[in-house]
């Protein structure tokens, strides 16, 4: 097991990602943040809360999306996934949507999320924000617009992002 980001580094990285978002999205009036279930929502919560602190009084639209029903491996011999909550109580029509996930690996989750998101409307643009980008493991032509840390890990290795709310402490490990 090797630590890639410590708790402090996670906090610094999240702050940086938030400032990059502010640079591109200004007052967030035309922006919606959407966290990917199940693990991306912890990063999305953190980003949302940090943005609220950095921009007091600004209303940021924030939802969660579950991609279970849009997976491309349903019935392909893999274990069945139990769906999680989707909560998007605003229109994404003509908004700039930022999809948020913890780890970008094969790109298949992001592909499913794009499909799931389109059932809620047609955004003017879609961006992807991830805490960890596993390079050289992509199976689809998908790249992140905002990246916390790029890492090189082989397929047999498991990259795990842990969050205080869920796992007791913040860090990113490889095992």
């Amino acid at each position: 097991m090797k630590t890639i980001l410590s708790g402090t580094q996670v906090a610094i990285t999240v702050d940086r990602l938030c400032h990059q978002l502010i640079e591109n999205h200004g007052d967030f009036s035309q922006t919606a943040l959407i966290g990917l279930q199940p693990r991306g929502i912890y990063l999305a919560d953190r980003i949302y809360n940090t943005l609220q602190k950095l921009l007091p009084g600004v209303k940021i639209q924030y939802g969660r999306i579950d991609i279970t029903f849009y997976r491309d491996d349903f019935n392909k011999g893999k274990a069945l996934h139990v769906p999680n909550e989707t909560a998007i109580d605003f229109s994404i029509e003509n908004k700039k949507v930022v999809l948020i996930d913890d780890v970008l690996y094969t790109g298949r989750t992001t592909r499913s999320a794009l499909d799931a998101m389109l059932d809620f409307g047609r955004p003017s643009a879609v961006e992807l924000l991830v805490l960890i980008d596993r390079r050289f493991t992509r199976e689809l032509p998908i790249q992140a617009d905002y990246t916390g840390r790029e890492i090189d890990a082989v397929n047999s290795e498991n990259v795990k992002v842990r969050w205080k709310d869920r796992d007791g402490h913040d860090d990113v490990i490889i095992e």
Partner: protein
Amino acid sequence: MSLSVNHLLGIRGLKRQDIELIFQTADQFKEVLQRPIKKVPTLRDTTIVNLFFENSTRTRISFELAEKRLGADVVNFSASGSSVSKGETLIDTVNNILSMKVDMVVMRHSATGAPHFLSKHIQVPIVNAGDGINEHPTQALLDAFSIREKLGAVTGKKIAICGDIMHSRVALSNIYCLKQLGAEVTVVGPPTLIPKHMQEALGVNVSYDIRETLEWCDVANVLRIQLERQNTPLFSSLREYSLAYGVNRQLLDSLKKEIVIMHPGPINRGVELSSDVADSGHSIILNQVENGVAVRMAVLYLLAGKKEH
């Protein structure tokens, strides 16, 4: 996580975790049904046949909508106008349909045990949409799901099942489902419509007094009198039944508390349930119908996902 069964033949074969998994999945499908686009592509490579050897409105439309909203291809079959009237057997009929590359079967049949029999002869998942006087599992699931939605939980709640217990597959499936989830169940109706030994066999209370039972319960699930399944008269007239066991406004107003009214449909208005009660705020009958689609989507999704294992 997946279901412990390969077919949904009845609630009797389900574990509590199975029912909870179905509910948990149905919660998310219910959200899908509120979206601008009420459809997901999950079963787009799956073809489902709805085999209805017996009449149905709600169940059939509900299954068909559930299938279509999961993106499945749907084939409908009804016994009238088919080769069944030429003498084809059930297995032949189904095998012929399956040879056209159908992946799942939803079946309603007037013979008790028909889907159980079929499950021993075909390889694809079967969902029982009602077999004779035995079970109607998806109805029981949507009933319990609706109680959970209305009251927050099923465990510990007091549920009365009223009317024609003898001929009702909804009653039997409901009893299995509610007991499995830890509810208390009382069946109430005329003695001729309640089978003997219900208490010993199924662990439910038996009552012949509708007022007393309504006073006790949190929810009353009022069943339809199944005249088509009664070969000999079991009560003197519908009017007398209605006077003795019908649920009406006057009866509800005389209770010391408010209870939730359910009915699996179709309602015989003025017989087991009066119109003013069926259309009142106490009634969650239309919620049951709405939840039916989400619950059936969950069942189909979970069974289809087991296909390859």
